[in-house]
């Protein structure tokens, strides 16, 4: 991952203008994604991770209510400023997306084969027959049994896991260089979750695509990520490779998230419920002053953490952290 990143996001900000005033959903977010790399974006609901993914795909409502600023360079082209027609050609082509809700994300009145073939026809200029053959190949690739016989099935014929496979087949139909997966396994049973993660990993090995994997589930992160970006209150609060982050989290929020994950090796020793992070995610309309996490932080110092806002600073060559006290806490 030494060569130029395939996706380079710089200072991405998203603000919603609502009746109650302007709401910052994503704040000066920057990250890079190397070729073939998987970046997990982690955070609680409302941390801005889904908004980030929709902003990158330019799928947020196109009106005065949403202001997106910053840059997102996909192989040098800024996804946020290219003309809509060009973006449309990239969408589902060079950059594609898998959504959380397999039950509602497929068109209920169109056979699945047609839905996969549509993307192939649009981006690869295949005619109907060839696109249909390609749809068979893709559905087969994502592990749909007897794919040829299922082409004319409607989404409601399929289980949630099978529908998510169809979604993945659609997303991969044009060999994307970046796949954004927004909680693709959250709505599925645990066993199906594992199958889908396994499928994504195998497909990634095969095609060499990079992945932005959005999830709130650290167990899933451990399964799939190379690097992790932790988001809180619309900001990046820590960024690190997987192993170091899990073994030695620098930001108290990350540490809190990790403590709230059930672990096999601890199951015998620890009694009582898992320690959840107390409190709730902040209301984006009324962000706390200073460090946005301080009201929930066990290490916060009055007069310091609620006064000055920390910046995202490099902790070592591969890590970044946004905390005023990380050095003291690490020591």
């Amino acid at each position: 991952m030494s060569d130029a990143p395939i996706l380079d996001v710089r200072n991405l900000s998203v603000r919603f203008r609502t009746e109650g005033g302007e709401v910052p959903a994503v704040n000066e977010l920057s990250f890079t994604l190397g070729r073939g790399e998987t970046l997990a974006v982690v955070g609680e609901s409302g941390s801005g991770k889904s908004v980030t993914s929709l902003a990158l795909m330019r799928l947020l409502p196109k009106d005065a209510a949403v202001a997106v600023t910053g840059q997102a360079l996909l192989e040098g082209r800024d996804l946020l400023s290219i003309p809509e027609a060009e973006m449309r050609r990239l969408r589902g082509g060079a950059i594609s997306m898998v959504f959380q809700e397999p039950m509602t994300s497929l068109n209920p009145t169109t056979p699945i084969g047609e839905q996969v073939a549509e993307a192939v026809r649009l981006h690869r200029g295949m005619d109907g027959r060839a696109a249909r053959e390609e749809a068979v190949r893709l559905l087969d690739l994502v592990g749909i049994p007897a794919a040829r016989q299922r082409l004319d099935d409607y989404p409601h014929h399929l289980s949630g896991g099978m529908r998510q496979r169809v979604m993945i087949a659609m997303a991969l139909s044009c060999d994307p260089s970046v796949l954004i997966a927004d909680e693709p396994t959250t709505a599925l049973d645990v066993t199906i979750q594992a199958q889908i993660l396994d499928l994504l990993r195998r497909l990634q090995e095969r095609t060499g695509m990079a992945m932005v994997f959005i999830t709130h589930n650290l167990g899933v992160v451990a399964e799939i990520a190379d690097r992790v970006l932790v988001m809180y209150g619309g900001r990046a609060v820590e960024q690190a490779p997987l192993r170091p982050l899990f073994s030695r989290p620098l930001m108290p929020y990350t540490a809190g998230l990790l403590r709230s994950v059930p672990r096999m090796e601890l199951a015998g020793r620890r009694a009582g419920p898992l320690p959840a992070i107390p409190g709730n995610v902040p209301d984006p309309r009324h962000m706390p002053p200073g460090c946005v996490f301080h009201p929930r932080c066990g290490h916060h110092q009055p007069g310091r953490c609620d006064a000055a806002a920390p910046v995202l600073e490099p902790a070592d060559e591969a890590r970044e952290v946004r905390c005023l006290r990380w050095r003291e806490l690490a020591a």
Partner: protein
Amino acid sequence: MSLTITRPLAAPAFRRFRRHRLAAFGAATILLLTLGCFLGPFLLPFDDTTIDIMNRFAPPLSGVHVLGTDELGRDMLARLMMGGRVSLMVGFTAMAIGMAVGILVGAVAGFHGGWLGAALMRFVDAVLCFPSIFLLLALAALVSPGLLSIIILIGATSWMDVARIVEGQVKSLRERDFAVAAEVLGASDARIIVHELVPNAVAPIVVAATLNVARAILLESYVSFLGYGIQPPVPSWGNMLNNAQIYLTSAPWLAILPGLAITLAVTSFNFLGDGLRDALDPRMRAR
């Protein structure tokens, strides 16, 4: 995670403004029409029944008769006002009857459920199969036409929607905790209905009532136009149109004016009802 994006700032404000404006327009028009129809005749130098053969078919704005005269030389404005009294009164009273019946049937059906509720609601379905104008005319033809009978008949043919609304409301409210709690505490059926359920069902009922006034005015005009409603010489907006078709070529205002009055009144009630729905019942809010 689900993403909820609040709607753009400008759009709902504009929408609410527009809705509000329409509802305000409706309310103001209703008030003006009511006042005009009930007070106007006292201020007017003409009587709606005075026949003036020398002054037949005077066009509007041509002389002392502001809105002209009809085929018997009667002042159109006076007739419109007196007709408006009748039409508005029919609208309100027929609505009241329809609401009373509908609320009663709906409350009983929703509260008791079971076979009685099912039977009542299937009966509602059956009555709704009859196009209301067919039903109304068939009934109107059976009785001697008049103000009272037309009010009762319109009321008798427009309670079904309300019954459905109330039944649905009562049924869903009954399943909520507080009604169950009241039942456990030994409150009587009547007490639960009056104190717990009715206040919760008020919003959709008010909306339905407003829209039903519009409907009743429209139905009265249909039946009277066809000759089975309000009988001359008592004027109503509907029966004023009854003869107008004959004079369409020579005196089109005879047809145009009462129709405009009906349209204005009905539109106003519909605007008001729509605005009330927006304001009172967030679940039914139109987008």
